[in-house]
């Protein structure tokens, strides 16, 4: 199979070409990241149509903000997913209610806490995905569940309290301590 130069470019170079408005680079950029952007939007908003709208908006925002991307602050994927999460949380606030969709949340928990890194990530050597999974799987299971539901599921502490059938204070503690532990793991990994 032949790959275009855009498809083979590293993330930073691809983002730079995307920012310049090159159409083939835009297509390659989309193909590389759309699954992850859409996946995060869907896990937070739990509605396919709205997740699609959010994901489209994310790429438009990314295109507008691409010049401000600073590789010293994180990878392109993390930058893009931060935009996605913010957009999805904004959309979530605008909705009266988010469907519980336990199936989506169960899938989210299973995919992040039980599954091994996906084959395609290994093939692409996408280190940040493997690191994130390793960080989550390196903290206590209750903390990891709370962190996943809060960060990737968009759940509030009150919702996690109900879902996990734990007191609100316990839910808050698990989120807080889980995020701190993960940050420590992340920092240690970079040292």
């Amino acid at each position, binding site marked *: 199979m032949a790959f275009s130069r855009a498809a083979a470019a590293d993330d930073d170079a691809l983002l730079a070409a995307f920012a310049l408005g090159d159409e083939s680079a835009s*297509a390659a950029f989309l193909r590389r990241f759309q699954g992850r952007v859409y996946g995060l939007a869907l896990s937070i908003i739990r509605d396919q149509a709205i997740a699609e709208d959010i994901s*489209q908006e994310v790429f438009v925002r990314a295109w507008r903000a691409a010049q401000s991307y600073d590789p010293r602050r994180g*990878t392109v994927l993390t930058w893009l*997913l931060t935009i996605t999460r913010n957009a999805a*949380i904004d959309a979530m606030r605008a909705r009266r209610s988010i469907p519980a969709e336990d199936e989506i949340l169960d899938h989210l928990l299973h995919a992040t806490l039980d599954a091994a890194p996906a084959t395609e990530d290994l093939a692409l050597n996408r280190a940040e*995905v493997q690191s*994130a999974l390793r960080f989550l799987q390196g903290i206590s299971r209750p903390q990891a569940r709370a962190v996943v539901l809060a*960060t990737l599921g968009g759940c509030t*502490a009150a919702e996690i309290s109900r879902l996990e059938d734990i007191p609100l204070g316990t839910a808050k503690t698990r*989120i807080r301590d889980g995020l701190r532990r993960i940050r420590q793991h992340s920092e240690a990994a970079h040292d």
Partner: protein
Amino acid sequence: MTETWHPDTDLLVDLALGHARADTSDRITRHLSECRACRGVYDELQEGLEAVLPAAPETTAPAGFESGVLERLHPPQQTAPAPHAPKTRMTLAAAAACLLGALIGGTGVYAYERGTSEQTQSPAPEAEHTAELVTAGGETVGWAAAGYGAEGAVLILTVDGGSAGASYTCLGVFDDRSTEVLAEWTIYEDKTSIWVLEESADSLQRLELLDDSGDVWAQAEW
């Protein structure tokens, strides 16, 4: 004055997760700009959050997602066909010619290539106002036709037969036999190019595309 209030960690968690109420969020954000200790705690939480995000499961985007985004990022600058006699002098705009080459002249040219995306379609002018673009050897290599763009009447020129790297000077020949160089284009890829010129009121009799040596490569005549 030094602020004595400090948000507790749960409020900082709420802010990092985007769950803080708007009024609380504003107050904490202001505080974080002044308090290094609280800023440090918040940054830790934010870094923890960002470290987790790549773990989000990948999900296949719906069919048409890619083309939908590309259409928003690279909208085809399409002009609607309209019956209009093209025997008028063209005026030119600056800009927007990075794909198709340098333009010269004055006021409003759109340029794009057919085939660069699935959304881009060739304009379909009415046949009676269309003139074929024919080479000296009699080969049809495109057409010119009248239409309407966002700014008013335009002349649409398509070229199928050019080869990548070839440059052409577009020369207008008017009813009073005067001539004017309307544009200069370079074809960068072996695919159909579409150029759009704004019209003025002067009558155009013929369009000529001159090659690098100044010879007429092809022309459209009404």
